């Protein structure tokens, strides 16, 4: 039975930063979603190889990054800090390397707690390396086994939260984006994607339970963010990317159906919709993640966040210091403002949130679909649909309707070349059959089936 047949948050005024109906308590006593927004720092290596020979240098690099960032954080006294370690592919293919880095980070975080009382929690995000095979083998093989080993090993080494940027369905989705084909997007996200998510997250929950840690959440990064970046580069329509974002929530939701409890992964810009559905806390990233990628969501992304992230920054020297140190400072200051508003009470928090929303929502359709009101509308469409396929269609049509309404009311600016895409998407979705199996029969003749292993998607 679908555990989410109704919304956890129904009033847009209750869908706001720092507050979640189901907050998450960490071992060190942080309560994520319990009235405070925490900074979430992520960093990565500069231009260097990862091999057995370079691993001592890799570990030294991570040690330098975490030590510098924690030292600055201790001086700025945030109420707590989330650190995310997103492995690089070799660190998942060779689990011990990922585990060794986790240990370096966890030890430094323990040290900062002992010396400065700085509370923190470590999120480990191993790679979904299954796509290293083409077509990807999704349910077996060495890559899959090493992923699970990395998850378990990282948990034992001190990571309390487990996440992933999973890739099931990407084999079709990339081409669907390039072709501007919304039917293939729905197939990739709501049929292939959701089926893989169910398999993947059922297994990750077992790993988490076995190692006494929490499943945090997934992201449609390889889907919605690919669309966003392509739109940002003017390669695809922004309206199309906004609709992809709405549909992507159907896929990411499956992690929570399988036992994830948040905070949802930072680059999942669909998280406001998921927060409305699940009530779990969510990580978000926006203006302070420009170090990793550009976006039209800089302020509005913070409107519903429970942790506020920089996505990722390379360990390079900036004028202020090493980049991870500079970014922890930026995140802490961003959070201080949000926490000051929260401390003043609901009205102040809503005022700040209104400015975050208002400053972005009228300028880009991708921001527009993520206003608290629109997120709840899309969330409603998803939970009232009978299955994932119908949910994808409902999310798409709801997003198109909201964008049309916003444009007609003068609340959303759209370039002339964007307008025809509203009709293109709507017509295409409305042509889709009511029945999932009929749709699968049609679409399997249209997509390149050599790019994926059909049986791994129960097709």
């Amino acid at each position, binding site marked *: 039975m679908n555990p989410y047949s109704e919304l956890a948050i129904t009033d847009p005024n209750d869908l706001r930063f720092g507050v979640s109906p189901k907050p998450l308590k960490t071992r060190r006593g942080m309560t994520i979603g319990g009235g405070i927004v925490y900074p979430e720092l992520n960093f*990565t*290596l500069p*231009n260097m190889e990862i091999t057995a020979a370079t691993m001592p240098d890799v570990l030294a690099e991570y040690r330098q990054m975490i030590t510098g960032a924690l030292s600055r954080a201790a001086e700025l006294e945030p109420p707590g800090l989330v650190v995310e370690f997103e492995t690089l592919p070799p660190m998942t293919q060779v689990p011990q390397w990922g585990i060794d880095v986790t240990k370096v980070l966890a030890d430094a975080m323990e040290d900062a707690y002992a010396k400065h009382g700085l509370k923190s929690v470590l999120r480990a995000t191993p790679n979904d390396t299954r796509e290293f095979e083409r077509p990807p083998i999704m349910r077996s093989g060495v890559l899959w086994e090493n992923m699970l080993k990395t998850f378990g090993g990282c948990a034992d080494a001190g990571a309390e939260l487990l996440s992933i940027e999973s890739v099931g369905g990407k084999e079709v989705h990339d081409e669907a984006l*390039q072709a*501007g084909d919304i039917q293939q997007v729905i197939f990739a996200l709501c049929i292939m994607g959701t089926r893989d998510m169910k398999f993947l997250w059922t297994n990750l929950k077992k790993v988490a339970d076995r190692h006494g840690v929490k499943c945090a959440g997934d992201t449609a990064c390889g889907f919605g963010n690919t669309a966003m970046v392509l739109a940002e580069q003017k390669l*695809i*329509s922004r309206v199309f990317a906004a609709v992809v974002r709405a549909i992507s929530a159907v896929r990411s939701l499956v992690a929570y159906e399988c036992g994830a409890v948040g905070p949802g992964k930072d680059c999942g810009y669909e998280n406001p919709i998921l927060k409305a559905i699940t009530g779990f806390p969510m990580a978000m990233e926006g203006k302070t993640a420009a170090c990793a990628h550009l976006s039209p969501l800089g302020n509005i992304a913070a409107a519903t966040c429970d942790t506020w992230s920089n996505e990722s920054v390379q360990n390079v020297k900036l004028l202020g210091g090493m980049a991870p140190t500079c970014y922890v400072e930026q995140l802490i200051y961003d959070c201080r403002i949000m926490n000051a508003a929260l401390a003043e009470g609901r009205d102040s928090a809503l005022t700040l949130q209104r400015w975050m929303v208002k400053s972005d929502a009228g300028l880009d359709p991708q921001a527009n679909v993520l206003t608290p009101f629109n997120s709840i509308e899309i969330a409603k469409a998803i939970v009232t649909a009978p299955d994932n396929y119908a949910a994808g269609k409902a999310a798409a049509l709801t997003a198109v309707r909201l964008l049309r309404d916003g444009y007609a009311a003068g609340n959303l600016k759209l370039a002339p*070349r964007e307008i025809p895409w509203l009709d293109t998407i709507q017509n295409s979705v409305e042509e889709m059959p009511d029945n999932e199996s009929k749709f699968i029969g049609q679409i399997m003749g249209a997509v390149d089936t050599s790019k994926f292993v059909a049986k791994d998607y129960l097709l």
Partner: protein
Amino acid sequence: MTVLEQLTEAIKKGNRNEAKRLTQEAINASTGARQILDALVAGMDDVGRRFQCYEIFVPEMLIASRAMKEAMGLLEPLLVKAGIKPAFTAVIGTVQGDLHDIGKNLVAMMWKGANFGVVDLGTNVPAEKFIAAARQHGATLVGLSALLTTTMPAMKQTVTALKEAKLQGLKVVIGGAPITQSFANEIGADGFAPDAASAVEVARKLVAVA
């Protein structure tokens, strides 16, 4: 409007049925294969220009590219018979350790539209595979893509290996989110394409001086 002008228009609009019909009509009228090809390429050049000016998106360009592909299916036997080959052949791929392929796919599509022969090796491609493909297909251009900072060393190794293979006249162009002109200079690549839209122009310039 002549049949060839209509053919150019059909490509611009991405009307593949019309492109096929007009190509066949031109063939039936014994129009030279080169002239028909030029009409097709002129259509795609216009599509590429509008794409570069942000007037259209990739899907519209893809539709035009598919129309051209259909027309080329009819034209190819005549081109072979007339000994007309693509302007040149390019081998393209994402370097070893990197699985990102959208940018690489877009460049491949742009190059095909400009009538380059394109051999797409996919993602996670080791240096030796680039060399073997360049040798096998007599390529004059190799395009390398990387999206991760940690696969930039693999790009450097691939460029070095390609240079050491001493394939005559071969030029190497690189691109990808973390790639810059200065990195291209540093690793000895011949060219750098900052985005897919500029990749045709960069390739044409490089090959013109090859």
